[in-house]
């Protein structure tokens, strides 16, 4: 019986991802035709170098959406963490790893603050995180004195290929995806998060305190934004206090394309990963093909909607 329900799980899984993977493949094929150089190792390398930041932040956002929240501050928090990290390295001469710890810790703190305020005072996380968006951005400017901070090769290693052209950053990001999916589907806290997102009141009534568990998710989101900042800094060897402007929408888009519900209670980390791939492949492909800026925007919009429509049909089909 367990086996059969496990098998159902696996088959369900393949089906679950079929719609999105289909959309992704279709896109790849199109770009393959449009650009001679799309199907090359270097495209793959570039992509795998591009996405770690977006991936880890999208994993965090998946959990935030699952508990029925939202966090708009992620882009700013990332910039703040990157700024602090680079200040620590460049100005105070800290070693990279302690500086990274500091940056990540500050980001986690921002997340925890968003969570604590929104949960504690029962204020929509939308508005609290919008406030934190502004505050963290202001602090990033303050810390760096609004200057791009160049760090240099000290942090390069995290983004340098070590095996099969993959960098520690992408490997870590993949590990976080897998860990995230396991936590979501296989652990007690994962179940409780889903339950909270489905009906918080019912969870409370069954004797589980939802609030600390919610704050934890926001703290985790902050932490992952910090990790994203580390990847970003190592990729660019510089910290840009303007970095990550508007990134919140990109992160949320990836998660929602992956099928996670904005209403809470439903989501998958693996699908989020596919969502990130869709967005990133699209961006890379359009830039390779070199279409004009207006067309880029129009195509991006169409693909976002089309991917989700396609996924909807797949889900309908499955039910029937």
């Amino acid at each position: 019986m367990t086996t059969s329900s496990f098998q159902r799980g696996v088959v369900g899984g393949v089906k679950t991802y079929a719609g999105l993977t289909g959309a992704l493949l279709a896109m790849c094929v199109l770009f393959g035709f449009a650009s001679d150089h799309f199907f090359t190792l270097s495209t793959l390398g570039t992509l795998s170098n591009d996405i770690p930041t977006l991936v880890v932040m999208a994993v965090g956002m998946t959990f935030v959406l699952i508990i029925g929240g939202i966090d708009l501050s992620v882009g700013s928090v990332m910039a703040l963490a990157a700024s602090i990290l680079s200040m620590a390295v460049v100005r105070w001469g800290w070693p990279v790893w302690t500086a990274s710890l500091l940056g990540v810790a500050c980001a986690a703190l921002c997340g925890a603050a968003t969570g604590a305020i929104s949960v504690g005072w029962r204020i929509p996380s939308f508005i609290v995180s919008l406030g934190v968006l502004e505050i963290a951005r202001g602090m990033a400017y303050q810390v760096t004195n609004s200057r791009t901070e160049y760090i240099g090769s000290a942090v390069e290693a995290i983004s340098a290929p070590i095996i099969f052209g993959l960098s520690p950053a992408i490997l870590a990001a993949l590990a976080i995806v897998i860990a995230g999916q396991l936590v979501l589907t296989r652990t007690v806290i994962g179940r409780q998060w889903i339950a909270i997102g489905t009906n918080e009141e019912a969870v409370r009534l069954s004797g589980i305190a939802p609030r600390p568990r919610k704050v934890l998710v926001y703290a985790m989101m902050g932490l992952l934004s910090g990790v994203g900042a580390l990847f970003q800094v190592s990729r660019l060897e510089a910290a840009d206090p303007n970095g990550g402007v508007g990134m919140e929408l990109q992160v949320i888009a990836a998660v929602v394309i992956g099928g996670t519900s904005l209403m809470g209670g439903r989501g998958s980390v693996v699908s989020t990963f596919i969502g990130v791939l869709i967005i990133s492949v699209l961006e890379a492909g359009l830039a390779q093909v070199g279409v004009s800026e207006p067309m880029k925007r129009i195509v991006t919009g169409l693909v976002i909607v089309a991917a989700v429509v396609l996924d909807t049909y797949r889900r309908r089909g499955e039910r029937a």
Partner: protein
Amino acid sequence: ADAAKPKVALVMKSLANEFFLTMENGAKEHQKAHAAQYDLVANGIKDEQDTAAQIKLVEQMIVSKVNALVIAPADSKALVPVLKKAVDAGILVVNIDNKLDDAALKEKGFLVPFVGPDNRKGAKLVGDFLGKQLKKGEQVGIIEGVSTTFNAQQRTLGFQDAMTAAGVKVVGVQSGQWEIASANTVASAMLNANPNITALLCGNDNMAIGAISAIRTAGKAGKVKVIGYDNIQAIKPMLKDGRVLATVDQFGSQQAVFGIESLLKALAEKKTQATMGGVIETKVALVTKP
């Protein structure tokens, strides 16, 4: 406050851009050195594109009854009507960095002196320097700033002028939005799509930083040359080790100061907007060493 002391407002674009920060600092230092002569209110908007916010800033300056206004317009046309209002309210206005549109000024029937560099000229300068190191027929890409801004457009034109002159082929122009991360993505894609690219011409230094990391990822470190614009702090180490070939200094800190000084002079001489005069071009300089 001293009633006789004039109040000068400086309205810029994104203060999160080092370029404008330098400009602001230059202005503030100047004010400190001449504290007896005038007061300064400096304001900027949150990003380069928020025209509406900049208009609101100018309106607030009118309300605050400043005597003179230095503006780096986020948009060459859309700022014209509100500046007309300022002039009508008796405020003297000087334009820096990004030139206001002549047709729009004419339609509104007033003049605003421009104190600033010629961006096309600056871009041509650094472009020519690069051109000398390229062979005829080589391929290059241009990474442009926010495509809707006048100086981004001008710089791209300057780059193109230089490349045509050097007989080099521009295989792509894409926008990196003045930012590191966007430029990085665009540069990566350009390098993948055109493996023969030998140089990337970037509209500002932030985008040059993004391009350099794209080059490294593509395994082409040392094989693709990069030029930038602005001469910000962060570019210096890269100029030093040669990853960036050259950039342009447009003396941001001086631009505002020139603007302020010409205003103070006009105030002292009791000039009106109509009698203030035309363009004062500020210098641009090629920078090849930190």
